[in-house]
């Protein structure tokens, strides 16, 4: 991981020692994950799903608990689904033509077994050659040959690791053969679907083989097997249906499937027979992002824990607040504003307690008073632990990526240099750069005399431009609210007064898919049902000069107002300084804002 204590290494590539070193108990809130039973683990990209899985695998558990493999409470395996490993475009040529379910399941099954064997080839397991040989010759070989395998068996019996590596190689060769078959379907003179390779499946191969393996010496006796399918949203729709069918086949408690996906990206919850799998009947659902983004205090504590651990591993013994200091001059002025609010509370106070007003108005007032033009307010410095953590919006990868970049700047690229503090200007620079990079990677930057943050267009004809208009309108309106004299000034979200139409829904869905918006639900204004809530990713606070810390409110919006914003890219609504400027603004009262 080099010298940078915050460097991100994909959890899949961490060895057991590294994973164990970095382990932070983020997930004691989710006992379902390491309990027998099928589970869907959902969360935004980068929220720590893969790390949760990595730290649940056998090699890390053995190291953390100082136990042998046979002493573990379960055997866990991870099957990563990469973007282009299983969901090959060639498989589409089977659809509606030649046994797509059977052949996709075979491909998935050999993929699963290949990863299980590869992981077993790296775990120290007590070995009994006679019993393992017996398993191969009297069970496994028969099972595979029964599935149509015709090659010679070449097994290295010198250790359990070499034996499982032989089985891995065999499965890997089966993948080669299968991909060659797929290639043949597209690029031959005369199309020939005939298939003469083996066919294996979950119930007829994976389940019985794993049952027999768990009975071998050196394996945890009578303990469950967890198969983690990581990034299952990368599966095709047919493959997702097959996985759902596996899940519905009720192999737990012996075999439980733990499926991780990004929120809203899993293609279907139907099985191959078009039957819906449902929670809690078929699985339990754990939403990691929901907890982390909705309970800010929880995320704050966990983020602090992660950063402290990283510094400690790097032998940097500096308290986090000192390592990520606030800008002293700015802090002093905010404190002066806090004092002023306290002194005026008796005559001009708005909240129930003086501290409510301090929390609500000190930073917004400071930002407002930085200058008349937005450019002056742009000098607000996003520095200090609070800002960094809140800007990460519940996404651990974002937090580590930002702090890693800060460290690189602070060390000036010098390897093995010792950094004892990240200056506020570096913190501010990185948080701004990251927000810009994230936003402008997907949407066009504004230019020209209007100086919009994003390039807005009138009546856009494509979804991306519509989203740019919406985000620009949200950010600009939230900024206007922040510097207004309204009662509630920290706003990051919009709640929908009525059901969005197709066009708006598509725009919101794109925003959610890109991670710009977080979708949630709250009680509607009438108090008789729920409505959509869309939260702007807090990481964009530096782009629009918003305050990401502490209490945040939301603004109710009608379809009509939202459509205007999507068409114009200007403001969500006209924002006045008090609550009764005109009919439109009247809606923006304290009643409109609810605590998230």
């Amino acid at each position, binding site marked *: 991981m*080099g010298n940078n204590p915050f460097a991100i290494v994909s959890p899949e590539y961490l060895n057991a020692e590294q994973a164990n070193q970095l382990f932070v108990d983020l997930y004691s809130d989710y006992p379902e994950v390491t309990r027998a039973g099928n589970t869907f683990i959902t969360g935004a990209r980068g929220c720590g799903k893969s790390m949760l899985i990595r730290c649940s695998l056998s090699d890390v558990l053995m190291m953390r608990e100082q136990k042998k493999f046979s002493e573990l409470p379960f055997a866990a395996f991870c099957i990563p689904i990469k973007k*282009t490993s299983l969901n090959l*475009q*060639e498989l*589409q040529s089977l659809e509606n033509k030649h046994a797509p379910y059977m052949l996709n399941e075979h491909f998935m099954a050999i993929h699963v077994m290949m990863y299980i064997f590869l992981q077993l080839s790296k775990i120290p397991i007590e070995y009994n050659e006679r019993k393992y040989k017996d398993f191969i010759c009297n069970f496994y070989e028969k099972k595979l040959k029964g599935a149509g395998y015709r090659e010679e068996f070449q097994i290295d019996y010198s250790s359990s690791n070499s034996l499982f590596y032989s089985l891995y190689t065999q499965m890997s060769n089966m993948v080669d053969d299968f991909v060659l078959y797929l290639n043949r379907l597209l690029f031959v003179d005369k199309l020939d679907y005939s298939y003469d390779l083996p066919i294996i499946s979950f119930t007829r191969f994976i389940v019985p083989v794993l049952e027999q393996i768990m009975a071998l010496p050196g394996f945890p006796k009578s303990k469950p097997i967890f198969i983690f399918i990581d990034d299952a949203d990368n599966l095709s729709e047919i493959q997702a249906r097959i996985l759902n069918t596996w899940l519905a086949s009720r192999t737990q408690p012996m075999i439980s499937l733990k499926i991780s996906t990004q929120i809203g990206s899993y293609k279907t919850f139907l099985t191959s027979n078009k039957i819906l799998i449902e929670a809690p009947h078929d699985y339990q659902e754990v939403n990691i992002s929901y907890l982390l983004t909705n309970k800010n205090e929880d995320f704050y504590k966990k983020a602090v824990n992660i950063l402290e651990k990283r510094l400690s591993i790097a032998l940097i013994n500096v308290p986090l607040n000192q390592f990520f200091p606030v800008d002293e001059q700015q802090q002093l002025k905010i404190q002066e504003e806090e004092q002023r609010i306290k002194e005026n509370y008796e005559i001009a106070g708005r909240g129930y307690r003086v501290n409510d007003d301090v929390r609500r108005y000190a930073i917004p007032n400071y930002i407002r008073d930085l200058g008349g033009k937005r450019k002056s307010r742009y000098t607000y410095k996003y520095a200090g632990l609070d800002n960094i953590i809140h800007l990460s919006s519940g996404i651990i990868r974002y937090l580590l990526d930002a702090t890693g970049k800060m460290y690189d700047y602070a060390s000036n690229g010098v390897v093995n240099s010792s950094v004892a503090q990240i200056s506020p200007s570096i913190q501010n620079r990185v948080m701004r750069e990251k927000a810009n990079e994230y936003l402008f990677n997907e949407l066009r930057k504004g230019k020209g005399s209007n100086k919009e943050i994003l390039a807005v267009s009138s009546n856009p*004809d*494509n979804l991306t431009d519509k989203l740019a208009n919406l985000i620009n309108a949200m950010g600009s309106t939230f900024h206007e609210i922040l510097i207004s004299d309204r009662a509630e000034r920290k706003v990051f979200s919009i709640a929908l007064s009525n059901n969005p139409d197709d066009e708006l829904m598509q725009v919101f869905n794109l925003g959610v898919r890109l991670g710009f918006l977080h979708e949630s639900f709250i009680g509607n204004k009438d108090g008789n049902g729920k409505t959509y809530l869309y939260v702007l990713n807090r990481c964009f606070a530096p782009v629009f000069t918003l305050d990401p810390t502490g209490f945040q409110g939301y603004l109710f919006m009608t379809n009509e107002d939202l459509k205007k914003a999507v068409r114009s890219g200007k403001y969500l609504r006209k924002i006045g300084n008090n609550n009764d400027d005109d009919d439109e603004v009247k809606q923006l009262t304290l009643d409109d804002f609810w605590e998230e």
Partner: protein
Amino acid sequence: MCNIDRDTIQKINCYLPSSYIFICFSSFESRSTSIPLCLEKQRIRKAYVIRNMESDIMIQSQYSFDTICEYIEASETIEINISKSLSIANAIIELISNLVIANEKTIVIDISTFTHEALLILIKLLYDNREHFQTIKILYNGAKQYSIGDTPEEMWLSKGCRDIRNVLGYAGVIKPNLNNHLIILTGFEIERATKLVELLDPDYLTLGEGVEPTESEHIEAMSRFKEKFADWKNNYNNILAESFEFSCRDVQTTITKLDKVINGKEENFILVPLNTKLSTIATAIVALNNRKVQICYPIPELYNVKNYSEPSEHVTILNLIDLFEKNIK
């Protein structure tokens, strides 16, 4: 040495056979008409005009399509849906199969405005049927300017990355026990490169930086993007394996450079061509030679349809059969 020529577009007919089948791609870029309108149409026995039928793009490409079909009367439309790779493959398979059945031996292809994915699939099919064809001339009209009217700082060709998929015919074989090595032939789309790294999460990253542009007008923009990529690379110090330079216009040189990066390493290579169509042909040839290479295609959210490019005055002519013979093992 492969037969690669470069000349002004008006002289294009000097390099072409006396009679041939013509294939081109009608897109939203005005470049799609540059070559067709300069061809001596009496030499064209038949033209196949590939066209994306997705509604918004279809509207944007209507003018190019009508212009080509009006000029070359003996033309047939090949309809595809570029968001579905199987639709592209099926249409091109049918096209090539028909040419083989009709015993057509001489074809000329204007690749200027093919999508990268469609071009790669076409090259694979031509490779599979290389024994049949006597002459395959590839024509490429580079852009004089990209992102018309924008400064190098404001330049954009596409926005976002909706998804990444393997290109049909280039699935490669990904082995879990080997490291994944992403090789990007970069161009003017830094954001797509960022998304590629984020979504593919490779163990190693190698960055190909284009040199020898098809037009000298690109030198300033290339230099600006070289600086941008130099900064960009700092984000990936933990996975950055190496950088190398490749030619944007000399296919053979680029093949040699890519071979040098790949040969002798036991890794899973994922190749992503984001530069010119000529360098894309080089990636196809390299992947056809190596099963350990997969080619992927990042699908953008949005193209700069209105101001994507302006055609140059030049054309590059390439003999594909020569290229296959020289390079395919």
